[in-house]
């Protein structure tokens, strides 16, 4: 009689149900859509705006699926990507500036499925078209800046301590540090101690001395350099995110890959030029004297009347959007900024941002602050993007400069090299400001080292071919198994089919991005998942040949095959794991699919088939087995 416990039947049934439900969303094909969000200051998204969009689309003779207001944004769906493109153009011309218009693939998964967290697998760029960039962050720039700044510092320090030196200069090779040449042994010892005490991030060693030249080698500690490199990547990721959001891609993928690479995947974007320009945007920073404060009467008056004093600019605060008047005179620029970090003010305990300038910046800052204690100072953030538009078949380039004030504060006392901006509202505000300051200072030293543009038709092509390959592979294996192992083969077929379903369900639930290599992984999994059943069936046949009864054969077959299946799958799993450690996205996707596939196939080919076999043979007296 069957020795298959009840709870295992229940488990199998539950897992099958889980597989069906969570794989189901992938059957709902998302539709191309255009998403409209209002920028700050523009009229909010509401029914009136919807009417306007509908009218605009009708006027341009673009057939839209539906136009709905969904929370703070508006969605218009279209039949295909061509219509989507002209729809977006039509909406753009109706609404004008003030709105961000983004391409989107709108999910058609019904609400009850979404409510339980079921969603479809996101498609990779190779399946839906788009632009892929791999960017390398140029760390040299950061090292250059850091070393020059330390050289300045050492000079100042030696002067301050009255130590006579011949020269302080950076070594010819980048990252090799700074050479300090002193006049006497005593000076060298004093300098060495002073530098080591003052700057904990520097290593100081004596170099070879010739005649009256006493050499001191100063290098930046490797851990400091590593921290800088890490900071640069984070910095660039943040800056890129901000800028790409402005591009209006609904679900951009921006992430770090390896130590100094950044991947940017923009689905649905067909023109990489615009994206590239945004990525290459140069941001700069200016410290300028303020005229009054943000939102004061003078600024409001200037904003409403348009009467701006001749020596001032009218800007708006980033975030609060309050008008503020700022003098045209520039005190220091971002190029003179060495570092900015957020922290807590020792005295008041409020969040602060600590800024470090280089020697020239410090001098200018000291001069200005000496004369202007108690007056305001503002930080202006300038972003320059070159926009290219096609007018009458010709490219017209217009530089677009966005300027905003990211901070204004009162000068409490004269300062130079180092100063703090205190009184910030929250820790988050402080870290945001530090990030912006650095973003303006380090003009995005990134190089594009890989660029792929995948046309939407190619994406559709790949989906079709991938689907066909999966179905044909599946059907052929199903047929072969049924032919070769008869009833047991049919049971294995059910398992194989559910393996596909559960694999898709797990991938969807985890949110694995489906790519072409991922599809290859699915097909390979299908081929290999049947292996466990082959092992079991061969064992059952063997047991039958050895004269065991059918029921005993089934039991022995499953029991003996299990050890083998486990060993084979664990070794296979090790191989799949290694694939996932590869940095490259495509291979990683394949590895992840393979890994999930191995795990799901362990369940389906052993537990699930055992349940079905027990269900079929369990309560009957058997003379033979169909295997």
């Amino acid at each position, binding site marked *: 009689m069957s020795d298959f416990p009840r709870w295992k039947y229940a488990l199998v049934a539950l897992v099958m149900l889980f597989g069906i439900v969570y794989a189901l969303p992938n059957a709902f094909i998302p539709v191309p859509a255009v998403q409209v969000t209002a920028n700050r200051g523009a009229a909010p998204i509401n029914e009136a705006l919807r009417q306007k969009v509908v009218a605009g689309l009708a006027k341009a003779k673009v057939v839209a699926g539906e136009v709905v207001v969904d929370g703070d944004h508006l969605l218009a769906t279209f039949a295909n990507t061509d219509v989507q493109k002209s729809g977006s153009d039509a909406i753009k011309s109706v609404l004008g500036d003030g709105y961000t218009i983004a391409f989107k693939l709108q999910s058609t998964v019904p609400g009850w499925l979404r409510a339980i967290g079921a969603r479809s697998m996101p498609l990779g760029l*190779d399946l839906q078209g788009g632009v892929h960039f*791999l960017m*390398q962050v140029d760390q040299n720039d950061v090292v250059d800046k850091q070393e020059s700044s330390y050289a300045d510092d050492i000079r100042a320090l030696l002067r301050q301590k009255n130590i006579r030196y011949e020269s302080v200069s950076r070594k010819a090779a980048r990252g090799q540090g700074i050479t300090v040449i002193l006049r006497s042994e005593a000076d060298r010892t004093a300098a060495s101690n002073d530098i080591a005490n003052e700057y904990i991030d520097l290593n100081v060693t004596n170099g070879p001395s010739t005649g009256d030249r006493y050499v001191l080698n100063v290098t930046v500690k490797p851990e400091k350099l590593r921290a800088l490199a890490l900071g640069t990547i984070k910095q660039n990721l943040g800056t890129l995110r901000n800028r790409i959001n402005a591009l209006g891609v609904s679900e951009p993928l921006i992430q770090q890959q390896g130590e100094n690479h950044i991947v940017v995947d923009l689905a649905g974007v067909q023109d*990489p*030029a615009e994206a590239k320009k945004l990525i290459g945007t140069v941001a700069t920073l200016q410290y300028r004297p303020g005229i009054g404060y943000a939102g004061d009467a003078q600024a409001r008056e200037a904003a409403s009347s348009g009467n701006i004093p001749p020596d001032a600019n009218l800007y708006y605060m980033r975030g609060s959007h309050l008008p503020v008047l700022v003098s045209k005179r520039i005190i220091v620029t971002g190029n003179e900024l060495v570092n900015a970090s957020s922290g807590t003010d020792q005295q008041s305990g409020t969040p602060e941002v600590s800024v470090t300038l280089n020697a020239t910046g410090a001098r200018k800052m000291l001069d200005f602050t000496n004369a202007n204690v108690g007056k305001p100072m503002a930080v202006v953030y300038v972003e320059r993007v070159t926009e290219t538009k096609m007018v009458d078949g010709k490219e017209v380039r217009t530089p677009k400069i966005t300027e905003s004030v990211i901070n204004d504060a009162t000068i409490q006392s004269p300062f130079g090299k180092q100063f703090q901006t205190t009184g910030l509202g929250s820790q988050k505000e402080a870290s945001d400001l530090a990030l912006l300051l650095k973003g303006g200072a380090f003009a995005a030293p990134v*190089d*594009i*080292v*890989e*660029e*792929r*543009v995948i*046309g939407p*038709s*190619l994406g559709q092509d790949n989906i079709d071919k*991938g689907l*066909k*390959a999966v179905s044909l*592979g599946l059907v*052929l*294996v199903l047929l*072969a198994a049924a032919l*070769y192992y008869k009833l047991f083969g049919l049971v294995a077929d059910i398992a194989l089919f559910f393996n596909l379903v559960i694999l898709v369900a797990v991938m969807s639930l985890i949110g694995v991005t489906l790519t*072409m*290599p991922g*599809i*290859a992984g699915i*097909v*390979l999994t*299908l*081929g*290999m998942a*049947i*292996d466990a059943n*082959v*092992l079991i069936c*061969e064992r059952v046949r*063997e047991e039958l*040949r050895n004269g065991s009864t059918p029921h005993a054969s089934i039991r022995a077959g499953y029991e*003996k095959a299990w*050890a*083998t299946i486990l*060993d*084979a*799958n*664990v*070794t*296979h799993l*090790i*191989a*799949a*794991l*290694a*694939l996932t*450690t590869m940095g*490259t996205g*495509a*291979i990683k996707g*394949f590895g992840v699919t*393979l890994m999930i596939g191995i795990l799901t196939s362990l369940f389906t080919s052993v537990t699930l088939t055992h349940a079905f076999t027990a269900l079929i043979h369990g309560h009957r007296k058997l003379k033979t087995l169909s295997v």
Partner: protein
Amino acid sequence: MEIFNHNSNIPFLGMRKYSIAIALCLMIASIALIATKGLNYGLDFTGGVSMVVDYTQPVQISEVRAALTKGGLDNAVVQSLGGTREVSIRMQPKDDKGVKQTASGKVNLDKISSDVLGMLRAARPDATLKSRDYVGSEVGAELKSDGTIAALFVMLGIMAYLWIRFERRFAIAAVATEVHDVLVTLGIIALVQREFDMTVLASVLAVIGYSINDKVVVFDRIRELFRLARKAEPEEILNRSINNTLSRTIITSLFTSITMGAMYFIGGPVVRGFAVTMLIGILVGTLSSIFVASPILLWLGVSKKDLMPVTRDNPELARRP
């Protein structure tokens, strides 16, 4: 239905001198091929610019090549992507003389691709650009080192697992056979000069996973038979294990080959290289499971006493060595 005689007793171990000799020859030949002919590295490794161009009417490769030569691109590699209307064009950015290289070596992919499309359209107006890629050379170098590390990681991981689950000799035999499988697979790819790109690399790593599967199944049977047998003559046990699992080895290979075949024929150009490599790997892996792994095991001197469970008091522990 049965294709294989379950009572088969082919003396695989008897031919071990020949089979090992052939395996060694194949390995040496593969190393020689990889060293002399080299792998035909794809864009992912070499860096450069690649474009996929679609024609509405069938086109000859020679036609495309002529159009590019006329435009001054002599070194571009033109390949068919299956079918008669799709070609891939691969070139180094410096080949396009119309594009001035900036000092920093940045590549203007848009300019290059529009140049190339211009050349093609001059000859055939029905050409359209389907995709374009640019990969910097440093990316390829990284991929190579990543791939090598991943392969080593797999081998060592598998070796460690087999060492713990089975025994030292099994671990060594498995990894030695793995090295053989990978080398011969790469050798065949080098021989036919199939493009070696990222998906092929993934496939080679997957071959390791597949073929270890095969070996473990045979090894498992060897362990079982050694434990059951009263008088264990290693050669006979090994031979019986291979014969007992022969049907499974071949059926599984056939099933997996079916799916890979389906992918090769209809999966499209993106995964074709993957499927071919997998098919080669399945063939090599299957043959080496039958002819190579066990002779190495025999040669390393596997015996019954190495495989007996340490303790027999606890039946639970006995089942899990």
